[in-house]
């Protein structure tokens, strides 16, 4: 009796129940963050013109691996010794024309005045804030939780494999892969929106080093590929289970 009760709570049924509670909380979180985003948008649009952007001055924000490989090749070609890190800010330049670089315990911060409200709001939605919020993150939270919620409602211990769930897994992987592509597009937009400030010691303008919080909050492209593989295997599992259904 005790064993049966343990099996009930720690078996598939218990796990499903627990997952539904967690995903339900995530869905509620997406709703709360959406409302909070409306308030923040109003604050940013009507508030002061100051914009604060986190910088990662070790590599440019787009295709950093290519940049590092090229820099390493160039140094090797010129016979220079290998460096630990390439391109960090040597010293923080304070209060030069139009912008300011502030020392942050974790990363340098670029501060400047942006008079256009829609540019400030766009930067906020792209993920240029020190909070978790960005539009892709909210979309991931809302759509991802909704797909997971529907998936968990469909799964029962008696019938775990359905074509609808295989489709939802594929949609989830497409969402993750789509957001990974969007992150690159977002960096192009940041380069267009942020003025071209220059700082000594850096080869590119500072808008090439702006770091969006989506780099920490969104799952990366490998997660999308793993999900896509799981979706394909799951779909095959559904086909096999349906094939075996009428075998006596």
């Amino acid at each position, binding site marked *: 009796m005790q064993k049966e009760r343990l099996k009930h709570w720690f078996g598939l049924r218990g796990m499903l129940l627990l997952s539904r509670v967690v995903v339900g909380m995530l869905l509620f979180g997406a709703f709360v963050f959406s409302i909070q985003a409306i308030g923040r948008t109003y604050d940013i649009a009507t508030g002061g013109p100051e914009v604060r952007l986190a910088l990662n001055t070790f590599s440019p924000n787009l295709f950093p691996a290519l940049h590092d490989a090229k820099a390493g090749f160039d140094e090797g070609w010129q016979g220079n010794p290998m460096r630990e890190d390439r391109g960090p800010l040597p010293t923080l330049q304070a209060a030069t024309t139009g912008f300011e670089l502030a020392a942050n315990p974790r990363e340098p911060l670029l501060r400047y005045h942006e008079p256009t409200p829609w540019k400030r709001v766009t930067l906020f939605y792209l993920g240029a804030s020190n909070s978790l919020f960005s539009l892709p993150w909210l979309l991931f939270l809302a759509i991802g939780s909704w797909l997971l919620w529907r998936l968990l409602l469909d799964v029962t211990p008696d019938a775990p494999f359905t074509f609808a769930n295989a489709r939802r897994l594929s949609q989830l992987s497409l969402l993750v892969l789509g957001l990974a592509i969007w992150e690159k597009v977002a960096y192009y937009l940041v380069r267009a929106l942020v003025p071209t400030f220059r700082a000594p010691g850096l080869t590119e303008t500072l808008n090439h080093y702006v770091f969006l919080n989506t780099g920490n909050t969104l799952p990366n492209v490998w997660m999308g590929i793993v999900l896509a593989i799981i979706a394909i295997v799951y779909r095959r599992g559904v086909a096999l289970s349906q094939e075996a259904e*009428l*075998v*006596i």
Partner: protein
Amino acid sequence: MPIIVNLDVMLARRKMTLSALAEAVGITLANLSILKSGKAKAVRFSTLAAICQALDCQPGDLLAHGPDPADLRPGTD
């Protein structure tokens, strides 16, 4: 499907009910009904052997082939 299942004929000959056969063979009544109505897609050799044992018959007594020209076209069940 050109395979005809004559389970009902054999059950009538042996004067046995479907539920009694299900109990003797050890498969569910629902699965045996699927087999009897000809809806099954495949039968395991072990199931066939168990039914033959319970009904004291040969597989040929249970299954027959009744070809339909429509079934012989490629790409059909």
